[in-house]
């Protein structure tokens, strides 16, 4: 029963995801308990010494005067209701702040990902198992992008393509072209790894007997690569894309900073430098949730591509 087995595997993954989230939340809570000093002052954050009234407000919000287990329950209960607390530095709900940045970040991340796939797929498929000039080029290109800090890639892209050639603006945010260079920065950080992983599995597939069988039917080299071998690189490629998507902030923090774009990355850096702890905790929880979600989707997609997986779970 495929539907049933999909549901079973889905619910298992969701349950696992909930465990991971619960772990994360508990960890953040524990963090507040462990860090020395007055948790209220810590939560208030910022550069100045908070007044007693301000601290009182924090204590009320977080129930800090209550016993630890009650605090924990209160914390969980609030999170379950989607309440991530308030940023005392920005005097705004954490959820509101994060929401304001989330779309911009998601768009950037997705654009970067799509671009990475668009570059990697042909690069890997065309060069797998061959020793052409293109393969050499791909080899060098991948190694170079892997070895460059991504902020540096971003700066070079801006210098060349925006300021010198004037092809892609980076300032006008409402111009869709302004997404190109930031997305390219994220993509270039991923392309090397992605196409290497894909090439490896395509090469492995090309050595399989079914490829010989396919060739024996009169298929051209191209059809064999695109029609048979490529699909076999999906799972490893999706796996690292999944980890990347979970780590979306890593690429995004740098890219948003370099390009001066709004989003979770910018918010994170600002939150860290201003010691805005409720906001930092919010970012941690949201990105963990995002990771869990993406990986559930990636896991499910395995079953769609490779029917063997769905049925064996």
């Amino acid at each position, binding site marked *: 029963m495929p539907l049933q087995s999909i549901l079973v595997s889905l619910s298992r993954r969701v349950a696992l995801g909930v465990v991971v989230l619960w772990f994360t939340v508990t960890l953040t809570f524990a963090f507040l308990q462990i860090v020395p000093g007055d948790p209220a002052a810590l939560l208030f*954050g*910022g*550069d*100045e*010494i908070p*007044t007693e*009234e*301000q601290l009182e407000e924090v204590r009320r919000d977080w129930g800090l005067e209550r016993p630890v287990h009650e605090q924990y329950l209160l914390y969980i209960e609030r999170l379950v209701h989607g309440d991530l607390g308030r940023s005392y530095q*920005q*005097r*705004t709900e954490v959820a509101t*702040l994060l929401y*304001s*940045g989330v779309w*911009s970040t998601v768009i950037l991340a997705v654009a970067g990902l799509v671009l990475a796939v668009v570059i990697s797929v042909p690069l890997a498929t065309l060069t797998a198992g061959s020793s052409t000039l293109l393969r050499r080029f791909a080899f060098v290109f991948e190694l170079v992008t892997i070895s460059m800090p991504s902020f540096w890639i971003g*700066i070079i892209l*801006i*210098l060349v393509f*925006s*300021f010198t050639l*004037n092809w892609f*603006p*980076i*300032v*006008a*945010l409402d111009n869709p072209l302004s997404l190109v260079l930031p997305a390219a920065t994220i993509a270039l950080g991923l392309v090397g790894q992605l196409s290497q992983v894909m090439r490896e599995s395509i090469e492995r597939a090309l050595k399989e007997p079914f490829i010989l069988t396919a060739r024996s039917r009169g298929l051209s080299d191209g059809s064999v690569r695109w029609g048979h071998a490529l699909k076999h690189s999906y799972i490893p490629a999706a796996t690292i894309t999944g980890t990347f998507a979970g780590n979306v902030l890593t690429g995004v923090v740098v890219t*948003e*900073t*370099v*390009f*001066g*774009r*709004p*989003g979770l990355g*910018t*918010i994170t850096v*600002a939150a*860290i*430098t*201003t*010691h805005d702890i409720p906001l930092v905790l919010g970012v941690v929880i949201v990105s963990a949730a995002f990771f869990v979600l993406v990986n559930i989707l990636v896991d499910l997609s395995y079953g769609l591509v490779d029917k063997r997986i769905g049925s064996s779970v």
Partner: protein
Amino acid sequence: PRHAAAEPVSGGEITYGTQTDPVNWNPHQNNQANAFLYLRNIFDTLLEKTENGDFVPSLAESYSVSDDGTVYTFRLRDGVTFHDGEKLDAAAVKLNLDKANETPYSIYAFPNYDSATVVDDRTVEVRLKKPDASFLDSIAYIGWGIISPKSLTEHLNDLPSGGQNLAGTGPFRISSYQKGAQVVLESFDDYNWAPETKAHQGKAYLDKVTYRFLAEPSSRVGALPAQVDVIEGISALDVSKFKDRDGFVYLSNDANGDTFKLSLNAFLSPLDDVRVRQALRDGFDLDALVKSLYRGEIRRAWSHTSPVSPFYDKSLEGAWGNNVENANKLLDEAGWTERDSEGFRVKDGKRLSVRVLYPTQLDREQRSTLLQGISQQLKQNIGLEFIVDLTPSSTYLKEVASGAVHIYPSTWLHSDVRKSLNGLSNGGALATDNKADPSIQPLKDLAAEALATSDNAQRIKIFHELQRKAVIDDVTYIPLLVQAYQIAASNKVNGLGFINQIGSPEGVYDVWVAK
């Protein structure tokens, strides 16, 4: 100073590349000079300060001072409305003044403020605890910008994060704001109450201005002129790209207020010995460092006070610094005669070492590089270890207040006489006046006298005395740079300028774009 040209035209829009996103949009709570250029578009103050230090009407059509200097009466302009449709009246002003003096809500509370009373619909009376010459500075300062009473009562908690609920009476209103990215302001059509310091009357020329926050200096410079029309904050190296170049306008302006300086903690060993402080002051070649770093675009400072301030003591120029021989002699005298393996001076087994706490978020214009240069020279020249502790720690204010820090580099960008005097009279107690050391009482008395007097000449005299004491005799301050602001623009943009009161870039009310 203002850049002017013929035949202004109305209409059009510009994109303005700026250095920073305001941390807080509530003018009562914002202390970033770099954010005033947005706030000055949105808010007005009761009075405006002119280039030569006078105060002229703005939202207040006139004002008067009682003879004892404790009661100020403001007569409000008629027909002024806020962006949200509220009317400007005496009650609104009283509310604002009360809020602006309420701690901890406001960071601009005035210590001698007593109360405000509504006399009639258009008249407000402010009572001071005692006469204070710096009061009008506060009145004209954007920190006391007048916010709509509706914003203040109904949306107080939303104001810091900007947005539609933030209403002032200024020539522009917020159209959209994306944190960390940009803010778009649109012209406020009803605006008809520009002060006489402005170049024109009526609504702003521009329909719309987009401030794009570009923290990377190279991004701002690179984006002009293809992607942005105006930028502010230009590094010395980049100036040559715009200055005297076809197609560009380049403006620069020295800041009013204080200079960028080192504040020395004269209560902490080894700086508690004035000879050590003097040696430190004279142990490096500031001229050479500043020249190589800023290529003449930024000047070195001679005093705690900015050279454009009316209170500046010109006689300090050339009176100190770069005297390595004497510095070494002073240290020898002070007993720091031995040297350790790294070449630092030592006394009683202790190394001659000071810790400089400088938060990364304040670091700009290569100031940390300058500090490194100083550190290097002090090591080479006089064997003093000058540890630059560059940390993003948000606890630096607490650390400074605790008295455990030797040196705290800072700028109080403020033409506020009070703050200046406070600083000058703290005897090396670092940014705080809670150090109640009897030895600094005479200085404090002197400062109080300067504030209370209505005689400007007398005040200037006291100021000079205090500056000389702080820089030359006591060495509680070592001035480093005269803070300066730069603007560059494509030459089709006209009417750019700086705020008279502090010298930072002005809003865009007078700006227009040639067709």
